[in-house]
């Protein structure tokens, strides 16, 4: 296991679109183990995407279990995640390992259903809401070369949209 280095904006590599994982082989399993170690070393962080450490494959880890006030599915390794349905909107505050010392408000779908393979390559489907759904959408954006600062909502929009923090 190894702690991996985080790419930081404006590193152009964060703009790459990551490739689908074809097979969950030993190399992928080993990488996921490193990604997990990296995530667990980052205080307060609830998600990480492979491209944030310079590996451009569609793998994310989300773990909201340290915040039990939010409904969650615990520690999730999601390979090739796809949002197959979404509903509602909510504005919430986000920060990113790749954009240090800045947080801002982003509008996300409030409810999503995400389909993926787990860390063993088995198909999984999770209905999610709120904070956990936000985390998954944030990480999937990384797989598409998109950062939360691309989707900021201005301060003055507070009254116009439903806001969930």
């Amino acid at each position, binding site marked *: 296991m190894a702690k991996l280095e985080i790419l930081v904006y404006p590193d152009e590599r964060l703009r790459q679109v990551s490739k689908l994982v074809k097979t969950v082989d030993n190399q992928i399993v080993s990488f996921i183990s490193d990604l997990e170690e990296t995530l667990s070393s*980052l205080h*307060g*962080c*609830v*998600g*990480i*995407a492979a491209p944030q450490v310079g590996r451009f494959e569609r793998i994310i880890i*989300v773990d909201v279990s340290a*915040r039990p*006030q*939010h409904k969650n599915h615990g520690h999730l390794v999601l390979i090739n995640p796809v949002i197959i349905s979404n509903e509602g909107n909510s504005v*919430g*505050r*986000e*920060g*990113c*390992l790749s954009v240090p*010392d*800045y*947080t801002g408000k982003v509008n996300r779908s409030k409810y999503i259903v995400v389909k993926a393979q787990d860390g063993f390559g088995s198909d999984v489907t999770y209905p999610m809401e709120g*904070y956990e759904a*936000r*985390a998954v959408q*944030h*990480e999937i954006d990384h797989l598409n070369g998109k950062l939360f600062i691309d989707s900021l909502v201005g*301060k*003055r929009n*507070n*009254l116009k949209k439903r*806001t*969930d*923090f």
Partner: protein
Amino acid sequence: MRNWYMLTLVGKDRPGIVSEVSRILFKAGGNLGEASMSRLGGNFTIMLMLQMDSEKEEVVSLLQPVCDELGLLAHVDNIAGGLHHHIEPNFRLSVHGADQAGIVAAVTGSLAELKFNILNLESDVGGSPEKPVYIMHIEGFADCSLASLEKSLQPLIIEKEIVVHLVPIDTMLG
């Protein structure tokens, strides 16, 4: 660059103020830091951090012609610089009610008792001229529970007949 300043500009709003001021500062070797501009009651207002080698008097002189031309009042203060010092808010309040003197003092007084550090405050007066409505948003940090904040605000909600929505902010870091 040696010095950091907080530059405050106030005047009648019109298009092009930010563009003209920032162009002059840039041409003189200035570097802008964080800034906040608002149109308050039809007035243009901006506070911006400015980093420059020039002394304070030179900054004032540099701005004088554009202030005269655009009808702006300028104020320059020496400040401690530093671009990266952000405290994350953990609570947000939305307050609204019939406009009356004392809402801000009452709400922020209750918050101050719990050492609530206000990081962002913005307010508007809406409604009709006969029945103006005051709306205020506050974000800040307090090392206390949601319940204790709610308890602290309860008496003034009744006294001022205002609505206060208090929600925790849980920043998602990914």
